[in-house]
């Protein structure tokens, strides 16, 4: 892919990250330490995985509001299989992931075949999956999971945390799919102008199905990381990740209107949002202020983009014909 506006936007996000690190580095002694940076990366691992799939969905000009709930679902299914049915780790993990990929496929099918906006389909799924996770776990955390499973969240591979390595690998894989493959190109085409993609013989509905399935998969990975780190399956897990992931993806430069987005931008956006959360904690700011700040950050990022859009005719000239159905 040519180093076009998308990548210039990612550089902007990166600059923002540097500024935030500088601010918290100045405000606290503990922020800019190797240990805390590692902490930030670790805290970024699960929401990073979630944000990968969300980016893919948003490039296709759709949204997935069920990502956090799918995290909970994947963790709950896996925890139950491990704890009560004593499944081998590989099988339990596969079934946990398989479950949320199927739920992602349902999101996609409702969007494609029933022609409901993904906003509605995935909002419904948010309720179903989060409620389902509570039902499966009987409303209580299913904890004390096998060590082999916990490795996903707490183990290390060389100097790096296993969760960070998994999410990093997922970022690279997705970057390659987006920029190097035919299906990635079709994703951008469908998000950029679904009608044009269709008349070029691309099946837009099917591409959106794949995107929502992929989002199910990456949310599942995020959920497993979370459950492995916290040593439990729980319907409450992932509840706050939708806000963080959406904020990270938007800050990372993915367009709400589709057709634009990068993995580099999203990775930077995730680290930025997690850094802000982390920095606020280290600055002794009360917990709930984090959400307020992240909420405001979404607006800020959108405003900055709108100002930038004034100079970028291609976003301004978007015709109604290009809107997705």
């Amino acid at each position: 892919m040519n180093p076009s506006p998308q990548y210039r936007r990612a550089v902007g996000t990166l600059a923002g990250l540097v500024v935030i690190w500088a601010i918290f580095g100045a405000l606290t002694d503990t922020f800019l330490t190797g240990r805390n940076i590692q902490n930030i990366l670790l805290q970024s691992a699960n929401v990073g995985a979630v944000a990968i799939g969300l980016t893919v969905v948003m490039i296709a000009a759709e949204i997935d509001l069920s990502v956090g709930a799918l995290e909970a679902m994947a963790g709950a299914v896996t925890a139950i299989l491990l704890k009560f049915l004593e499944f081998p780790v590989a099988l339990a993990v596969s079934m946990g992931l398989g479950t949320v990929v199927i739920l992602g496929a349902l999101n996609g099918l409702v969007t494609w075949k029933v022609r409901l906006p993904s906003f509605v389909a995935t909002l419904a799924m948010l309720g179903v999956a989060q409620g389902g996770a509570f039902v499966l776990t009987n409303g209580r955390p299913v904890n004390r999971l096998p060590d082999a499973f916990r490795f996903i969240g707490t183990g290390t591979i060389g100097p790096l945390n296993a969760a960070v390595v998994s999410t990093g690998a997922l970022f690279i894989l997705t970057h390659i799919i987006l920029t190097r493959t035919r299906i990635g190109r079709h994703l951008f085409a469908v998000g950029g102008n679904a009608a044009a993609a269709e008349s070029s013989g691309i099946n837009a509905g099917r591409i959106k199905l794949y995107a929502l399935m992929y989002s199910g998969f990456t949310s599942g990975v995020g959920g497993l990381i979370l459950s492995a780190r916290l040593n439990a399956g729980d319907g409450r897990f992932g509840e706050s990740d939708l806000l963080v992931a959406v904020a990270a993806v938007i800050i990372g430069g993915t367009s709400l209107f589709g057709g634009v987005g990068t993995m580099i931008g999203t990775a930077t956006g995730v680290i930025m949002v997690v850094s802000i959360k982390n920095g606020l904690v280290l600055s002794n700011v009360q917990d709930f202020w984090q959400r307020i700040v992240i909420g405001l950050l979404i607006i800020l990022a959108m405003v900055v983009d709108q100002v930038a859009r004034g100079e970028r005719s291609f976003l301004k000239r978007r015709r109604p014909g290009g809107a997705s159905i």
Partner: protein
Amino acid sequence: MATDSMVPALAVEGLSKNYGAVQAVRGVDLEVFAGEIVGLVGDNGSGKSTLVRCVAGSQKPDEGTIRINGILQTDSNPHKVRLTGLEVVHQDLSLVDTLDIAANFFLGREKCIEIPGVSPFGFLDYGYMKKFTNQALADLGVNIGSIDRPVGFLSGGQRQMVAVARAITWGESIIILDEPAASLGVEQTKLVLDLVRRLADRNRAVVFISHNMQHVMGVTNRIVVLRLGRKVGDLRTRDTSAREIVELITGSDLGNPV
């Protein structure tokens, strides 16, 4: 001009399409032979674009048949239709503004480096697609500068040239242009008209939709007139006049000279 072949490249028979209560196209027949340029004219809303979308497989006709090079198109979709060598420049151009020119040129037919085992993904051959697009545009005499720019950065006329060049390059048998010169400047209009004539010389079947009588009279062999979804005229261009065509379009004997 109809050539050796007696089978029309494109044969539409009794095609009808309704949008709810709106009868956009009503029982239209249309034949286009290889090497022939047929003008399709009619007032706004007379059903030209709807007819084109049905032929292109973007929309399902309610009634009627479509044959391409003699082969009946059943259960058609844009993917199947383009495999027959039929290309359309839709009125909305069907370009993805956020993708660059080369990407739009190869939209839905991306050239990939196939790697056994992972080929379902298909790795894009950027180098080939860029080179091919540059060459294709140069061959057609279309000059729009760097092909790395997103199409959304181009002017209306440049966008139209990309869409026209794309259709001409890939349409091996039939090319349908829905108002291809609507936002072009003088130079570009001349080029497009010239390209259309050259297509016929290369034995393509061409359907040319335009509101500009001068263009239609100047470039076509035959003119089909639609009014309120019905075909009301099918005349050889050399046997008719702009005045007669306008009368057919408006449905008045005293037609407004344009």
